[in-house]
């Protein structure tokens, strides 16, 4: 093997890669925050007494969770516009697909977190006379959310990597930018290596933050106080 590695050309293209990274960040931020909100709604739905609501929650989670993320993106970009007659941008399709994708996984995290709160907590809250919504809001969720933090951390990292799927819709995130550079410069090996280094550099601190939080939550028996 006599391949001569050469990373030098990349320095000049730094601003391009940075632009891609910023787009990745935007997509991640939108999909993660709306995924958390969607997940909260569907996760609670999966724990309520009403069978109909539980059913709706289950259909959503199972439909999305058992579909490859790539297909979701393609479907929202190419198939949905045909059905509703409005062409969507790659950005919008990627945001919607990744939000729903994260929402389904988050719903499961919420459901498991809520289920992990002891029955006695619900009972004590009911016994005071709190309504179901108040039991959830003031007693159960605050305890459950603490236990969910590590799982949400993992989800955040997974999602950051899943944003690269948007490159298939020609959305200018980091991987798509890298593809363009690779083709232009005939240096795919160096370009993609750089992408993986950038991802690691950005995600490593997030991973460590998760581990730190996980330890803290474990130490306090699921209760983080300050």
């Amino acid at each position: 093997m006599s391949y001569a590695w050469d990373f030098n050309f990349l320095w000049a293209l730094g601003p391009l890669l940075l632009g891609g990274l910023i787009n990745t960040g935007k997509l991640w931020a939108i999909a993660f925050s709306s995924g958390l909100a969607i997940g909260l709604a569907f996760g609670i739905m999966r724990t309520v007494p009403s069978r109909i609501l539980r059913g709706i929650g289950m259909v959503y989670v199972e439909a999305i969770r058992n579909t490859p993320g790539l297909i979701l993106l393609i479907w929202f970009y190419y198939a949905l516009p045909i059905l509703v007659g409005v062409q969507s941008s790659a950005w919008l399709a990627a945001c919607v697909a990744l939000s729903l994708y994260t929402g389904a996984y988050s719903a499961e995290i919420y459901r498991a977190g809520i289920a992990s709160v002891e029955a006695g907590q619900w009972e004590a809250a009911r016994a005071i006379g709190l309504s179901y919504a108040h039991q959830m809001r003031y007693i159960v969720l605050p305890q459950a959310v603490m236990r969910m933090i590590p799982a949400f951390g993992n989800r955040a990292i997974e999602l950051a990597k899943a944003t690269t799927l948007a490159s298939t819709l020609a959305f200018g995130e980091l991987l798509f930018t890298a593809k363009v550079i690779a083709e232009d410069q005939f240096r795919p090996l160096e370009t993609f290596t750089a992408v993986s280094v950038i991802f690691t550099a950005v995600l490593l601190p997030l991973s460590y933050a998760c581990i730190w939080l996980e330890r803290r939550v474990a130490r306090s028996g699921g209760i983080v106080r300050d």
Partner: protein
Amino acid sequence: MTEVLRLENLAKSYGQAQVLKDINLTVRKGETVCVIGASGSGKSTLLRCVNFLGYPTGGRIFLEGKLVGREVIDRSGRTEMRYREAELCAVRAHVGMVFQQFNLFPHMTAEENVMIGPVKIRGLSKAEAKARAAEHLQRVGILEKAGAYPGQLSGGQQQRVAIARALAMEPSIMLFDEATSALDPELVGEVLLAMRKLAQEGTTMLVVTHELGFAYNVAHRVIFLHEGTIHEEGTPEEVLVNPKKPRTQDFLRGVTTFRMPEPRIAPA
């Protein structure tokens, strides 16, 4: 004396298993009624029906003279009770419950545990609720721990906070479900003393307990529950000292097999 709670032919079954049958019981204002009986006799189920943590499957419950729920006649002509969740929330807010496992909210301080009900349900301001919490924590002798989290308190202290939490709603009746059964033996006394103080102050209480000494000294009436029915009922002297029914006698014989003289120590 005015009646606070009346149970009429109360029944509860889980599928085929009938846990409570035909319970008739009236608790008057200021009265302390102790319920004793073996495990599985339906003691806890009885309390849980009174504040609708479990739904009765038959009979009627009157709280302060008012029927809880409404009666409907079903297709086969039998009367049945229907309950609305909003009404039950209101009922639970007027019935204080103390659990065997305390069930304090671990993410809140002792004071916040006591304040949440008055703030969210009675609509008190934070300051009013804080004052009310202080008052009730003081009543059970644990005001100095107001800022502590449940995890930092002993079992006895946690249970007293739980009592204060129920009292702060100013309920018409307090229910105690084996409030001392999960405690270290050494900590039982402080909780029982707090409960006796409430009884002496005129709190209406329905107490499920295995502490026969407490029942003897504090209760106005004792009920012996057996296989889901009130088997024997009377003053502590009648039920605990001179039981008439063989099953009550067996129970008391079992509980008091070994005796010892009173320790020669000053009482608390």
